[in-house]
Every structure is written in C-alpha cells, then in structure tokens.
C-alpha cells in the first residue's frame, strides 16, 4: 500500500518533470495519445530507457556519442521495443547467406548429375 503510494508519487513527479519542461509548457501530442490508451506511465518510463539503449547500441561498434545521437530520434514506443534486446531483434544485412545458398545449390546439382559424390549412397 505504502509502496504503491510511493510509486505513484514518483510517477507523478516524473510526469510533472516530463510533461512540463521549462520551455515547452504544453502536454505533447504523444502524451495525449498515450493517455487515450491508458499508457502514459509506460511512455514516461520508456523515455528513461534512452540512456540504456544508447549504451547497448554502443556495444555493437558505434561510438557512445553517435549512439546517443541516434537514440535521440527513437520514440518512446521504439525505445520500449528494443531496450535490453537489441541482439534479439532482426538486424537485416544480408550478403553472406545468398552466397552460401548458391554454393549449396551448385553442390546439389553437381551431386545429382554425378560430377561429384559427397552424399555417398552406397
């Protein structure tokens, strides 16, 4: 009970800090949208993940400075999506796989026409 009250107070303080920064005094459109679906608290918490995501990104060959710059463009929903699991996300690059596939197909063809004999049947 007390813990949940403390948590609520913390969230309210965060909300006050996030939704009313010194310059932009207005409630943002993103906050309004999150509020409609009852997800304003998750949204505020997601923004706090920004540094974590930058640190995580910096482990994959990006300088810390550039990682900070890159995550600044991620929305709350996007931060939530990748935080803690960058290595599980599909990171599409391609290239090697196609070559491996071609090599495999060539081997199969050579095998079938009898030029080579990798898969010994007898």
């Amino acid at each position, binding site marked *: 009970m007390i813990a949940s009250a403390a948590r609520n107070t913390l*969230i*309210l*303080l965060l*909300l*006050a800090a996030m*939704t*009313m920064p010194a310059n*932009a*005094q*207005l*409630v*943002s*459109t*993103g*906050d*309004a*949208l999150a*509020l*409609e679906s009852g997800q*304003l*608290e998750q949204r505020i918490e997601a923004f706090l993940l920004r540094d974590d995501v930058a640190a995580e*990104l910096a*482990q*994959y*060959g*990006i300088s810390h400075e*550039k990682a900070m710059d*890159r995550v*600044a*463009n*991620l*929305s709350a*929903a*996007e931060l939530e*999506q*990748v935080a803690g699991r*960058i*290595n599980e*996300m*599909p*990171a*599409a*690059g*391609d*290239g090697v*796989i*196609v070559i491996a*596939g071609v090599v495999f197909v060539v081997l199969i063809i050579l095998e079938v026409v009898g030029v080579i004999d990798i898969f010994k049947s007898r």
Partner: protein
Amino acid sequence: MTRRRARAKRSNAPPPLGAWPSISVAAVAALMLLGSGCASFDVRIPESLEPRVDLTDTPFHPQLEHHCGPAALTTVLEASGARPEYEEVADRVYVPDLKGSLQVEMMATARNFDRIPFRVPGELSAVLAEVEAGHPVLILQNLRIRSLPAWHYAVVVGYDREHKEILMRSGTERELTTPVRRWMRQWDWASRWAIVVLEPGDLPAEPSQAAVFRALADFDENARPESRLRAWTGAAEHWPDAALVHMGLGNARYEMDRREAAADSFRQALATQPEHWPARLNLAQVLLELDRPCEGLQVIKAQAMDYDHPLVETHGTLSIRLEQACNAGNPSG
C-alpha cells in the same frame, strides 16, 4: 483447406508397419501438416487492384556489403522526394557488429529526413494497395527459415496479377521478380513488417486511424513544427472530428509562436471531446501566455479532474498560476 488435404493424404497412405501404427500415422499426418503449412497463405492479388503495376521511377541503390537497410531506406526516401546522402543514411541505421540495421532505427532515420514512416497492415492486399497508389513499400524478409533467419530489407515497386509475381528493388538487383507465394513466405517469416515513407501531409492509401496517429505522434517528438503542421493538416482532412488531430495542430501552431491559432485548435479539440484533458490544459496554458488568465481559469474549472488522473500535477500547478495571475489582474476579485 490445408487440414482437409492432409487428412485425405493420410487416408491414402500405405498401412504403417511396425509395432506403433497409431504413432506413425500421427507422425506422418503431422509431417504433412507441417509440410503444407505455407499453402494456407492468402496469396491472391485482389481483383479490385490494377492487374499490373511497376513504379519504374523508383530510384535504385545497389547495396554494399550488408547494407540492404541503408540501400532500401535511401530508395524509399528518394521516392518520397527527399534527397538523402546514402552515406548519411548508412551512418544512422547501420550497426557494424550486427552487420545490419534495426527496424526502429529505419523508422527513426526516415523521420530524421523530414519524412513519416507508416506501418502497413500485414496483408498482401494492403502492401499492393500502397504500390498501386504509387508508394513503394519497404519490407523486411526472412530469406532462410524461421529457426535460422537471414534478414533482408527490400522495396516492393510492383506486381503482376496474371503472372503471380512481386517486383522489388533488392540488394544488388534493380528488378527482382519473385513468385508471390515465395514472397509471401519470406515476408510472413519476418513477421510481415512493412512501411511506407511519405512526405508530411500525405497519408497511406488505406489509412487506419491507429497507425496514422501513432506515426504522427512519433513524428511530433523531433520534427520541425512546419512539417508537423502539414502532417496534422493532412490527417484533419481524413478525421476532422478526432480530438487528437486538433491537439496536434494546436501544438504545432504553438511551436510556431501562433498562440491565437493554437488556442483555436485546442478549443476545437474540446468541442469534439470535452473530457480531453491534454487539450483543456494546453488551452488554459496558452491563454495564460496570451495574458488572459481569468479566461484560462474558466476553461480549467469547467470540468472536474479525477484525483488519480495522470495529469493531476500539471493541472494543480497550472491552476495555481492561473489563479495568481487572474487575481493580480483584478485585485477586487
């Protein structure tokens, strides 16, 4: 349909040998179900669409090693009228040690070039409807199998209903034609992720309110106010009665120092949805800045806020400031 076919095959199968007939029948049936799993995709190209489309004007950037993300994103950005440098795109989306690019960074980078990425629903018909409308569609594919994925980004630029083919800019190929059935499997095994990247003010061919509002709200976080205003104006034509649209218009106008116009937008949001607290608080704040605190106080007091409302702190602070400013203006009360 899949299931019926599997069952038919099972009844035609030779009687199983060995001591565990029922188990082997079950295993054969299971294998057949697995084997015919991809037959259940709906791969029909709808009759309602043009029979054949080829967006020949779509530019092409052959990918360098592992750079299918930057290549595909540069392609759709250029198609939307942006002028990105390939190197700059690569610098923003490529993750060296993953040898690839993340979907969220593809979205974020599109916004960086003053363009809005919209998610396309995970149906073939939705993707092709965008292509028909002239929007090349950036997709994620899995070129291998689910358990050993090989991710790849490509751009759908056309299709042919008669030949059942999808046309793409992909990797190092300017025109890659893929049978629709294989295309569908490669897309399905990558969770059917697809986006269109459009200029602010443009909407997808079949815009869903949820997808558009999500995309515009994300765009709102970092974009220039002029672009935000254009984006929400486009949405207002489609959903004139949505409070969030007027909220977006108001916030953009405020950022452009057009406070009177912003106040009008917030009023319009409240006219469609009086219980919209973000619009009400923003209207009161703008009135305070316009030196009309007593009017702002009226606005904020016209509705009672629940004590556990997430914006209660903002409400409290603003109420006090409005009251002080109003009282200072009228010492008699």
